């Protein structure tokens, strides 16, 4: 009888561990950045890095997004934003140029005015070959190509966290969130070096180049 109870307990603990592991996942899945619901505008400050580095993630070579929360950079790809609000996005882009597989995605859509600002210049399109990443929430119709750092630039950032003294481009734009919901965002540039089509690894693991936007 004791054996049965023990057996059941062991099985329950194993199954529980398994389920907990799957629910949390091996990738950090941090709680959303602090944005109060009900506000009419919000700021989202991001950086993209060519490699996440040994301190922040298990796969140090993988390319990743980072988000600034309360002045510090975190590797979190789950962002909370208020519903029916204007979101002002600033992306500090430290990664080099990769090029889009589909050039069509190099034109911004779903942003206020149909344009975005790259290093002070307002535009609606960049050369698809110069894109390093995209900021895209397909269900909201939002996509903005992010211009890559020039290959010859000096003082390039090797891995996160990068400082503002490293070579980078700055992209700013504004989009409007719709109704409440749980939307995915992703990068459309084949930026996962070494993987077929550039779309494996960090491009298919939440916590690097993919995540969710919780509109509340």
């Amino acid at each position, binding site marked *: 009888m004791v054996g049965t109870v023990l057996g059941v307990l062991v099985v329950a603990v194993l199954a529980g561990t398994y389920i907990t592991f799957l629910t949390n996942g091996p990738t950090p899945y941090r709680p959303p950045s602090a944005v109060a619901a009900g506000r009419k505008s919000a700021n989202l400050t991001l950086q993209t890095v060519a490699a996440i580095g040994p301190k922040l993630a298990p796969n140090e070579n993988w390319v990743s997004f980072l988000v600034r929360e309360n002045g510090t950079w975190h590797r979190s790809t789950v962002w909370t934003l208020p519903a029916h609000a204007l979101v002002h996005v600033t992306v500090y882009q430290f990664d080099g140029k*990769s090029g889009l597989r*589909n050039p069509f995605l190099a034109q911004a859509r779903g942003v206020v005015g149909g344009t975005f600002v790259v290093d002070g210049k307002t535009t609606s399109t960049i050369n698809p070959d110069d894109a390093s990443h995209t900021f895209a929430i*397909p269900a909201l119709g939002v996509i903005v190509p992010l211009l890559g750092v020039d290959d010859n630039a000096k003082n390039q950032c090797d891995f996160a966290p990068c400082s503002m003294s490293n070579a980078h481009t700055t992209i700013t734009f504004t989009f409007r969130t719709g109704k409440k919901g749980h939307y995915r965002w992703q990068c*459309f540039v084949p930026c996962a070096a070494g993987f077929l*089509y550039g*779309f494996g690894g960090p491009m298919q693991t939440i916590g690097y180049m993919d995540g969710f936007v919780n509109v509340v």
Partner: protein
Amino acid sequence: MSLRSHSGRIAALTIAGTAIVLPLVIFVLGPNMPPGKHTTGAASQVTDNTVLLVVMTPFTVFILAYLGYALATFRAAPGEELRDGPPIRGHMPSQIAWLALTSAAVLFLAIFGTAELFASNGAGGGSGPKPIAKPSGAVLPIQVIGQQWEFTFRYPTYGGVETAQLVLPVNREIEFHVTSLDAIHSFWAYELGVKADANPGVDNIAFVKATKTGNFQIRCAELCGLWHGYMYDTGKVVDDSQFATWIAGERRQFAPIKKYLPAYSLTYQPDPQGRAG
């Protein structure tokens, strides 16, 4: 065969059951079968589904009637559980009859399915790069480009404009050219009754003619990676003037990117790894 014999009773049950179920299948279930009759392809699928149900009905009713009758009648008597039944090892006439009936049904279904497939120009299914059955007359080609993880669309007869949304004119034969830039996707426009796999380097053609205006769902139906479940969209079927207005608007909006787009082609071979690094 009288009603006093087992076979007579089962035959009677089968005939009665079929007589009750068949009209329900033909007149109630059949016309309401998915995916509805919004397009020619979908309508031919509904016809097919109905015919399949009609052919299946007598067989199903027979097997269920037989099982029910057997379970009700052929039971071991209490206390005589180990008494043997009659050593019947087969019955050639019923074996031959069964073989004949199932063969007839199978051959009918195969011939009917083939005829319907060609008559409906593939019934909305992906028919490869060189379909035999084509609609006569003019078609409107629309390219569907699957990529991880979004569908985009190109209208070659409208300057090769690429759009993020799919809008079709009503009552025009559409020729979908489905292709992919990376993994295998499958373009599934549910209400249109269209499903065609998007393979990299392959031009997969599907024909359809929408007969009603309205919205339809687009889904990816082939597992394509992380965001497969989020690769959905809503398309629209509109009348000709609305379509003309819409496509003109798209051409204006996407003029800036036009010079970067590759020339319209049935398949694309993008740089394998980009310039990743």
